[in-house]
């Protein structure tokens, strides 16, 4: 120790510490004050009563108690799905079992998704041993029949379409500890892209953001089932079992289920029997099964036909050969959804995909990045050259983005698709839109895309475990681009390379179908969309007779392309009429959106749907049991079946949380005092030594 030898002076030490504490306090107050002054202008004063969009969450308390209806008392639903796949067509039977575990009579209401291209053409209600066939009625009429059965105590089922990919099954008068089964069937053309077929079965409707404004979404309560808080599900996982009986028609080379573990049996080279390895899975993410035909066995064209009521219905698929071409300079606008529903796994997938896309740009390209949640903002005021510095800046900017808040998608689309004349350059203008599509105002957005697209092309990238496939596919169709789904971080690379191939290769344009002379044909879609690399032409047609050859012609990179397919020796395909009607209805509704009025097509759609027994936005299935079951003295309770939160979503970020009710002042004080005490002890020891 040094030479100072005077005895320790308590007063000195105390004075020193008091001074330090005093200085600390003063510093704290000054710094706090400065922070307060500086931070204040950063928040704009929130205007009282601004109309903000919401998630329209039907919040329910999930712990059972005396007060209030509990979601836990609603009937339990389990689902068993069997697919029969033959070539590019799948027929699915979806069996929903409603079980009422309680002592009250219940009406079970289950909101769930189906593939956006599903043509639902059958419903049966099973009560005990009895099977009651459902009837197609106009939506309001079906509801009336159902309501009457409901109030008179008879068992009934109603099946409505809320969106092309959201449906509601309502089952009335489920008795105490009783089980009622509803069976649906649908038909679907499978997606074929890049030499792979894919069968997708969504299982949960992710919570949808509903923007404010009375006229924008008028059925918000129909598309937002109650959502269970993670950790409170218990047995309520809405389990789904899946079985796929696959007959690919050609030898299967690769078969993959990226999101679920499966058991596969192979009874023959072109046949597979697939089932979930774990028996049943919680309904919290999309199921996907993909397969590719063995090389060299890929058919270049296929024609399936069926005769029904004297008319021939057919499905034509033609795969144009691959072609390379010079890469044209592009202007790419990347749009990233950073809303609360993207929090967690989704935003990681999206950021990684975006980074890959940025790395793919060359300095001749131009680009910009837009992010949106409750507001939309662009990185640069205008698209700029993709210089290495600009790309680095964008990468840093994206890296720092956080997912939270609303999903005001219209604002982002308006930024990405500026209205008015743009300078027409030799550049191809492409908008890449990365989102989970968790919104309820799809129609408004579709109209916006239709009105503002101009010469831009829109490419949707569906992110996460349960993307809104209807939004992804329809937005891409109206935006004359393509769609891609990314469900896991480890498939970002492969999925994005496929997309880059489409973005960079020349497009097959001006596609036309020429039916043989003398054959009366009505085929849909009326205007065939441009094709990107790896995509087939798919046409549904109704013909008065089958003879001659159909020609499909188009033009790519200045060269003509033509295919001829004989109509006479087509494969027999069941349910082609259903697919044709489904395709025609979709085209009619597109026309209605374009014209801004549904009145003209409504009657046409209802007629078609009735003739082909199809569920549409205007027509529903209803099935009623004859004998009354519920005694009139018993009350009927409404049980909205709660759904799971999609896998990887962050509940707090989606729905918000209760306000935080504590500061760190106590911790700061206690820890501060401890430090001061420790310092004092050390100081005293030095003096003593």
């Amino acid at each position, binding site marked *: *120790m*040094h*030479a*100072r030898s005077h005895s320790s002076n308590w007063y000195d030490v105390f004075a020193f*510490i008091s001074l*330090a*504490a005093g*200085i*600390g*306090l*003063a*510093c*704290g*107050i000054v710094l*706090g004050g400065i922070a*307060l*002054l500086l*931070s*204040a*202008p950063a*928040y704009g*004063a*929130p205007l*009282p009563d601004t109309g*903000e969009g*919401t998630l329209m*969450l039907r*919040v*329910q*308390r*999930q712990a059972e108690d005396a007060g*209030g209806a509990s979601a836990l008392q609603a009937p339990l639903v389990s689902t068993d799905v069997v697919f029969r796949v033959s070539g590019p067509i799948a027929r699915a039977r979806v069996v929903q079992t409603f079980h009422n575990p309680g002592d009250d009579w219940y009406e079970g209401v289950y909101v769930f998704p189906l593939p956006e291209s599903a043509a639902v053409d059958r419903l049966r209600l099973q009560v005990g041993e009895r099977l009651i066939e459902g009837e197609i009625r106009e939506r309001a009429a079906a509801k009336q029949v159902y309501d009457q059965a409901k109030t008179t105590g008879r068992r009934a089922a109603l099946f409505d379409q809320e969106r092309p990919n959201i449906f509601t099954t309502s089952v009335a008068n489920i008795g105490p500890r009783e089980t009622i089964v509803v069976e649906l069937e649908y038909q679907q053309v499978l997606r074929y892209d890049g030499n792979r077929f894919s069968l997708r079965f969504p299982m949960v409707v992710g919570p949808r953001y509903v923007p404010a404004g009375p006229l924008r979404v008028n059925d918000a309560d129909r598309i937002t089932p109650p959502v269970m*808080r993670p950790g409170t599900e218990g047995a309520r996982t809405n389990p789904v079992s899946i079985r796929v009986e696959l007959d690919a028609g050609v030898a299967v080379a690769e078969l993959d289920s990226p999101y679920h573990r499966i058991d596969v049996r192979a009874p023959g080279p072109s046949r597979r029997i697939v089932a979930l390895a774990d028996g049943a899975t919680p309904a919290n993410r999309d199921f996907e099964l993909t397969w590719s035909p063995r090389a060299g066995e890929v058919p270049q064209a296929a024609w399936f036909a069926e005769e029904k009521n004297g008319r021939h219905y057919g499905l034509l698929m033609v795969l144009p050969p691959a072609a390379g071409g010079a890469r044209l300079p592009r202007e790419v606008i990347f749009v990233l959804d950073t809303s609360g529903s993207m929090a967690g796994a989704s935003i990681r997938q999206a950021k990684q995909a975006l980074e890959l896309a940025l790395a793919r740009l060359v300095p001749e390209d131009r680009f910009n990045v837009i992010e949106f949640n409750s507001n939309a903002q662009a990185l640069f005021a205008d698209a700029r050259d993709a210089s290495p510095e600009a790309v680095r800046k964008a990468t840093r900017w994206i890296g720092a983005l956080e997912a939270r808040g609303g999903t005001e998608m219209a604002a982002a689309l308006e930024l990405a698709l500026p209205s008015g004349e743009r300078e027409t350059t030799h550049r191809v203008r492409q908008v890449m839109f990365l989102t989970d599509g968790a919104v309820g105002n799809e129609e408004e957005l579709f109209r916006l895309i239709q009105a503002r697209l101009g010469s831009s092309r829109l490419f949707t990238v569906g992110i996460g475990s349960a993307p809104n496939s209807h939004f992804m596919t329809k937005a891409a169709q109206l935006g004359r681009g393509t769609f891609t789904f990314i469900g896991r971080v480890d498939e970002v690379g492969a999925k994005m390379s496929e997309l880059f191939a489409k973005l960079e290769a020349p497009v097959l344009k001006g596609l036309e179908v020429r039916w043989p002379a003398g054959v009366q044909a009505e085929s849909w879609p009326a205007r065939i969309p441009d094709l990107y690399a790896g995509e087939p032409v798919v046409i549904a047609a109704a013909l008065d007779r089958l003879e001659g050859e159909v020609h499909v012609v188009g033009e790519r990179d200045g060269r003509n392309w033509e295919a001829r397919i004989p109509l006479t020796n087509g494969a027999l395909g069941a349910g082609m009429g259903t697919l044709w009607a489904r395709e025609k209805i979709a085209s009619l509704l597109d026309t209605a959106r374009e014209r801004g009025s549904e009145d003209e097509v409504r009657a046409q759609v209802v007629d078609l749907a009735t003739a082909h027994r199809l569920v549409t936005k205007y027509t529903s299935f209803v099935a009623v049991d004859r004998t009354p079951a519920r005694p009139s003295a018993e009350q009927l309770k409404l049980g909205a079946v709660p759904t799971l939160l999609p896998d990887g979503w962050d*509940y*707090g970020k989606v*729905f918000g*949380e*209760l*306000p*935080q*009710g*504590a*500061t*760190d*002042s*106590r*911790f*700061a*004080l*206690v*820890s*501060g*005092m401890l*430090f*001061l*005490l*420790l*310092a004092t002890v*050390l100081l005293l020891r*030095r003096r003593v030594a």
Partner: protein
Amino acid sequence: MKADSDLPMGVECAWPIPPKSSVADRVGLAVIAILLAVGAWQAGRGLWIQAKAGLAQVLIGRAWTRTLAGETAVKPWPWADTWPVAKLIVPRLGIERYVLAGADGSALAFGPGHAEGTARPGQDGNSVIGGHRDTHLAFLREVRPGDALIIERPDKVRVTYRVGRAEILDRRDIWAMQQAGPTRLTLITCYPFDALRAGGRQRYVLLAFLS
């Protein structure tokens, strides 16, 4: 102390602590200095949070007086991004608090905050008020069922609620903020009351119903 003798005498006298201590000694001093600085900073911060919470209520009180006189959205200080929307009175405990607009961190530092999107305090529906358990809503642990909670509205009308029950909820149990059900006041703070740190998962939710 040979080194000392090398120094000129005058210097040693003028500088009675020669800086000749060992490295360990200097490190010791530095550690003490750092401990003192950090301790002072932390203690100051803690005191500042409390001082701010107390001081702000005085300023907000003045803004409330002007609000009662007919002004709307009176900011208690020029750069504030919140304003008083009600006064909460607990007669049995002699408590008075000015409730601010918004239940986010920036408002809760200065007073209990009314959660946006829920019924305005004193109006029909569920009025949700959040606040810190270690400042403005520390009194909640003293509140008992049957106690009167009075809300003074900007139009000077006083609405009396009776405390019904309290619940401990997860912070994600946002049904507590839903509007359906009887008209009520929902006071939310962090739980447990004695926790040292902020950011816990649990919330203490007190429900008071219109009497």
